[in-house]
């Protein structure tokens, strides 16, 4: 009998083909094997006429597919992909429906499969799918996941995979939520660094001279120099008596801009390396990640781009970013009207007006 002579042959052939294909699949996870590829292995013997024995091949491949060691894919025309033995084990003991659902989740890989997609592609009834998902979940084959892109979708992913960047939103998301605290921390770190590199802190700078300077002294004797220094130091002592605000302003005034064409403003690369070297964060942040944050800082009007001679872009801090919000505000908001919640209604003779304005009372009594 043909079948009896080829039966043991079938298992052996299957194993040999599988062993040949598995390393190839491991090398390139996207590779799909077609009928020709199988014949090219020269494992399946030719039929008496010397042609490819399609029938035999079919039976061998069917056997592998039944054992879940191969999975059928459509990549134009029919093709197969190889599963590892452990992977194949998971498929055993699944019903046809469960098998189908699992294969969709499996196929979606790290992007995750949306229940609605599973349903439309499998053409199964909702209840069947739900039951299958439940079973798969209980066997720990799949798990739920959340996608940042589509937060409302119910999605599943194979348990042994973690969602990809598009689904998690990259380093800025923690558990599918935008981690604003983390972002703010990095932005502040970046900004502090840029700020430090932007300005020159001069201890001696005291604003423009109040009086006309005397004729330039050619050379100072040591005594004169000392007297001058004492003067300066004395002046600094008296500064301590200044109130909080003027002290702050003094500090602000002493941060001087760098000359035009200054080349040492930090660039993106420098910042990336610096962040990486200091291990501020456990996550590794790429240059493009940081670029996004630098853009945000720019939108916040805290830093600006400068072109440097090497052709690259560097960043420098804006001077006003050193002031806190109390020291810089819009003129319009100084008077009560700028912040008035009922300003639209305000009119002399109306329900609220300048004569009965409480905000004005408060402001004028300050």
């Amino acid at each position: 009998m043909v079948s009896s002579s080829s039966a043991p042959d079938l298992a052996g052939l299957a194993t040999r083909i599988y062993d040949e294909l598995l390393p190839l699949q491991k090398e390139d996870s996207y590779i799909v094997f077609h009928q020709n590829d199988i014949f090219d292995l020269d494992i399946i013997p030719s039929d008496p006429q010397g042609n490819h024995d399609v029938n035999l091949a079919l039976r061998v491949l069917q056997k592998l597919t039944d054992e879940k060691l191969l999975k059928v894919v459509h990549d134009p025309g029919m093709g197969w992909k190889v599963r590892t033995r452990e992977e194949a084990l998971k498929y055993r003991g699944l019903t046809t429906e469960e098998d189908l659902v699992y294969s969709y989740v499996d196929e979606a890989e790290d992007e995750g499969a949306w229940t609605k997609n599973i349903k439309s592609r499998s053409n199964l009834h909702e209840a069947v799918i739900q039951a299958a998902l439940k079973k798969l979940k209980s066997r720990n084959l799949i798990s739920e996941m959340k996608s940042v892109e589509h937060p409302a979708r119910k999605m599943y992913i194979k348990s042994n995979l973690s969602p990809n960047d598009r689904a998690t939103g990259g380093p800025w998301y923690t558990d599918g939520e935008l981690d604003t605290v983390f972002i703010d921390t990095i932005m502040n770190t970046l900004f502090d660094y840029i700020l430090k590199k932007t300005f020159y802190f001069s201890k001696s700078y005291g604003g423009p001279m109040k009086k006309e300077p005397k004729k330039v002294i050619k050379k100072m004797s040591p005594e004169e120099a000392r007297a001058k220094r004492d003067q300066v130091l004395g002046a600094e002592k008296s500064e301590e008596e200044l109130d909080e605000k003027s002290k702050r302003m003094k500090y602000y005034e002493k941060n001087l801009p760098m000359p035009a064409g200054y080349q040492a403003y930090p660039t993106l690369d420098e910042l990336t390396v610096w962040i990486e070297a200091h291990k501020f964060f456990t996550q590794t942040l790429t240059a493009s990640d940081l670029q996004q944050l630098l853009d945000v800082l720019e939108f916040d009007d805290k830093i600006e781009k400068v072109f440097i001679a090497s052709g690259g872009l560097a960043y420098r801090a804006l001077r006003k970013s050193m002031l806190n919000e109390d020291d810089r505000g819009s003129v319009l908001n100084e008077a009560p009207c700028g912040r008035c919640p009922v300003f639209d209604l305000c009119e002399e003779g109306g329900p609220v007006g300048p004569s009965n304005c409480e905000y004005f009372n408060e402001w004028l009594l300050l």
Partner: protein
Amino acid sequence: MAPSKNAVELMALLVDEAYGELTSRIFTILLRRGRLPIRLLSMHTLLTPRQLRHGLAVLIQQGLVYHNLEVDTGTTFYEANDDAAYGLARAGKIMDVAENRFGPAARDVVHKLFLLGHCSVSDLVTAYESKNKDHANGNAEGSSTITNDVNGQSVSPVDSIGQLHSVLIQLLDSGFVEPVVRSMFHSPEDTHSMIERQILQESFGGSTKGAKQKDELKLKIKNRMNAIRAEREWKGNAKKRPLNGEHINGINGTNKRRRLSNGSSTVSGDPLIEDDGSRLDPTLVIHINYEKCNVALRNEALVAFAKERIGEITSLIFAQGLAILEKKIPRCRINPSIDKVVDLPDGPGFTTKELTTVLSKAVNPGTGIGKASSGEVNTRALERLESRKHKSEEVKIEGDVSMGDGPDEEPTINGHTHLSDIEDDDDPFEEGDKSNPAKRRKLVTFQAESSGDRENRLELVKKHLMLLATDDAKFLRRTGNNGYGEWTCDFETLVAKMQESEVDALLLENFGISGHRLARMLRRLGKLDEKTMVDTAKLKPKDIRTKLAEMQMAGVIDIQEVPRDSNRTTNRTIFLWFFDEARAATMVTEHTYKAMSRILQRLDIERRRAHDVLALTKRSDVRDFDPEVYLDANQLNDFRAIDAKIDNLLCQIGRLDGLIGLFQEF
């Protein structure tokens, strides 16, 4: 453009504050209803013609109302001059500028002119004469509160008629005060239509045919308008005074030098003006020139902006540069229907050398910029600078210093390529700063007589100018290389940048960091949908949605619906958010107008509440004394309180006016 409701309200209040209710009533009606003949005016104001004539006389005297006699019908139409009305809010600032530049005497004269509207020189003289006489009787005018006794002898800072003339000449020279001509009493539209009619009659026999003739007509009108405006320019015809007529239309190189020397005397010298013996024609009629004053105020605002962005020292140098430019700029905004729009890319400019010459010695250009080692500045550019130096050296040897084109007009890409050659050892913060004069001199060997100091100062000033030019706001633009670099200022872009920054400040305060971020993002990137914004702004979608809604309610940003198909269902529609700069600016202006009106109204209320005390201080027998002398303790406290309140309110009006200036006039 017709003034908005808020603006009308404010102007009515301003006129009321300055000249009383009668005038304010007439003025408001004119503002709201446009031009009116006296009959209709009487109908709307419910005033008798007699009262009306009184009010109109005052308004015309103050230049607040235009009038025009229509020859065909024989009726005179009156029309409100809203610019002048708004100018009333700015009076304090203009007086301040005058004082800063020309001393307290000028302030007093400007103040007088504000009170008198337009008047002839002889009237002004009479006013001062009588005032000085009155003062002898202890009965001086109430205006003396602003004096600040310079000589310790007289209450008025103007103590002789000669001084008055000198002050006036200075003011006329600077353009703050201008001679009054007949055409000023007509509204610009009337003048325009009158000229049009004339020209049509003269040259085209009544009507134009075709586009070509229309253009011709336009050009002729423009020329005529220009000529009319030139009429009012101060020609400096005082006796004993060198002619100085070009200060307004100034792209005239020959006069630069002398003007500079004038400039330096006001900057570094003593602001007290002595009688230099020159006399003005007593029949000359003068008034305050708001347009020119705005130029001065704009410069102040720009300097403040430079101080905020770069630093104090740099801003002082910038101020000096603008002061040079100011003499060549008659008004902030050019009117395309009158001014010849010159196609030249560069406006009036100045050179580093000019600037350094007039720069006050109190400004030390060696400070104010951080120290950087030469390795940190662009060395390639340094080489280029070096080669340019050689060329300019040759030019100097030929004695061709200020004329001719720059020898090597390089494109100034971002400006930062032009570096000054400050050396490593040149630490601007060192006291001595004399460590290596030989090395420095090596760079500047061509100028035999000048010391290294002078050259050094030039270089240092140039460093600051470079900083101004490379700033993102583009305070200056380099146009050439003569005189250590020629610079010009593109006011339009700069003012736009300032407006932007002001709007930003407001957004930051009203909508917090996230609102500020979103608005700036929309401005930069254009229209965006919510998803993109979440990605770019790094904010939570929920927060963004609430913030956007909040800002939309406030009218700062708006939403645009783009349906994806013809059904226009909500879920097939893209919603795009956008930020309208112009609308935000209008909103700021309107809010400011309204806030100013409210403050003025509140001021009136506060005054009324404290009527008792204020009335006391205004009594004719005590008003020359210090209130402390005659008020008892309680009254004095009340007086102090109300005084502080009034100060607060007025000061706030002044500050708000800065915003109006920025968004409307500059």
